[in-house]
């Protein structure tokens, strides 16, 4: 680094770390997640262990389309996250150094078109990927419910709670909060309207919805990270079960 941390804006983050720590951590986390996803796509063919299903492989229905099982699912959440306003900030800072941190000079490229041209103009389609992500979310909720219904020897099934059931429930809850705190959703439910009061002065329904989503939206970045790690962790847990490295824990 040419400049010392002290002479650069954003030199000290809240934690007191140097300005370049955050962009490099972003690259590391997203990079590892990307590599892990690719490994799943090309080298893993199932995410099922008994009644647990990895979020990377849900839904399992292929509707006659023959593709790699993880790829069938993965493109949707991937495009959803890649066009997310929060991840865009992190990606532009971490991967494109546009800018790496506030006030840090950008010297590498002459041209900058922002989100006005291909490829980043596509980020304007974020709301469409949000709709698709919602469909995926419905499947994940069904999977989470199934994770509480265990097969019994000799046929039939019973309600039960295992470590995997809890992990899957937490994961789908975090994904739900990530989706419902989305900026496009905030706009959709009420942000786009100009008036928030009815003729009699009472708040409109759209106002109430917008207000609630706005509160969640303040934590959108947090939900983005924790839900990414929970998806990752859920798959790792189920994969370790599939490989027999660990044994399933059943509470009752």
């Amino acid at each position, binding site marked *: 680094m040419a400049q010392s941390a002290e002479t650069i804006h954003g030199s000290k983050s809240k934690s007191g770390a140097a300005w370049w720590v955050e962009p490099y951590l972003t690259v590391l986390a997203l990079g590892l997640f990307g590599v892990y996803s690719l490994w799943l796509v090309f080298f893993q063919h199932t995410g099922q262990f008994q009644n647990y299903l990895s979020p990377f492989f849900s839904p399992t229905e292929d509707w006659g389309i023959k593709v790699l099982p993880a790829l069938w699912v993965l493109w949707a959440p991937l495009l959803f996250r890649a066009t997310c306003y929060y991840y865009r900030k992190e990606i532009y800072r971490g991967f494109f150094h546009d*800018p790496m941190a506030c006030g840090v000079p950008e010297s590498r490229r002459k041209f900058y078109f922002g*989100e006005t041209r291909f490829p980043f103009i596509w980020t304007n389609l974020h709301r469409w990927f949000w709709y698709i992500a919602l469909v995926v979310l419905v499947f994940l909720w069904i999977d989470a419910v199934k994770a509480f219904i265990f097969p019994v020897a000799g046929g039939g099934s019973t309600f039960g709670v295992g470590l995997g059931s809890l992990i899957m429930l937490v994961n789908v809850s975090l994904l739900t909060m990530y989706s419902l705190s989305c*900026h496009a959703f905030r706009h959709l439910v009420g942000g*786009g309207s100009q*008036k928030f009061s009815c003729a009699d002065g009472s708040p409109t329904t759209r106002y109430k919805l917008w207000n609630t989503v706005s509160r969640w939206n303040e934590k959108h970045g947090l939900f983005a990270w924790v839900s990414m790690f929970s998806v990752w962790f859920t798959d790792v847990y189920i994969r370790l079960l599939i490989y027999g490295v660990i044994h399933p824990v059943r509470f009752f």
Partner: protein
Amino acid sequence: MAEEITLSVFRGDRSGGREQEYKIPAVPGMVVLDALHYIQAHQAPDLAVRWNCKAAHCGSCSAEINGSAKLLCKTRVDDYTDEVIHVRPMHTFPVIKDLVTDVSWNYEKLRQIPAFQPAIKAPFTLHQRDVDRIQEFRKCIECFLCQNICHVLRDHSAKDAYWGPRMMIRMAELQMHPLDTADRIDLLKGSAGIGYCNITKCCTVVCPQGINITDNGIIPLKERVADKYFDPLGGLVRKMHK
């Protein structure tokens, strides 16, 4: 003996210049503007610095202190212990003299924004709830620190393509007004260049008024642009709704 602080202040004009060191006695509660006034009074009477209120309200004293875009009157000297305080003019605007920059470009752009066009004649009564959102933007003191730090203007010199975060929240303030009838969406997508903003949020970080420029202003405007230009289905639904 009173504690001594060292400031390294940019001296120069449009043709160039360099930082010059000054040593002054520290006074408890001193802000950087006080320190510069001390230098003016005792060591360099020709030091140029623009200020008015010394209360973080007029937006005149914007500068860069140790690389951060800040108000000189709101930044305490004791935030920088055991280090030299480097004071430089805003990087994005042409220097007139020392710490004073020419920010007239911003006023030109402000004039190009279509004014408030109310649906009914004033005076009118509004519900607080309807104006809460735009009141956040009205806190702006036009210090232009956000314009200074925005990498589109700062590093890419794209002043001809993007009007910057201050203009975005001015347009948000008008566009979200419950009685406004003007349409600024084409302008936003066109010559105001909202697409150049890549929502990396430095404007929000530096705003001394704590305005959520990106989350509450620019992103909602980007969504409005998307309504019109990137969402034929949504447009159709809205038409039927009307």
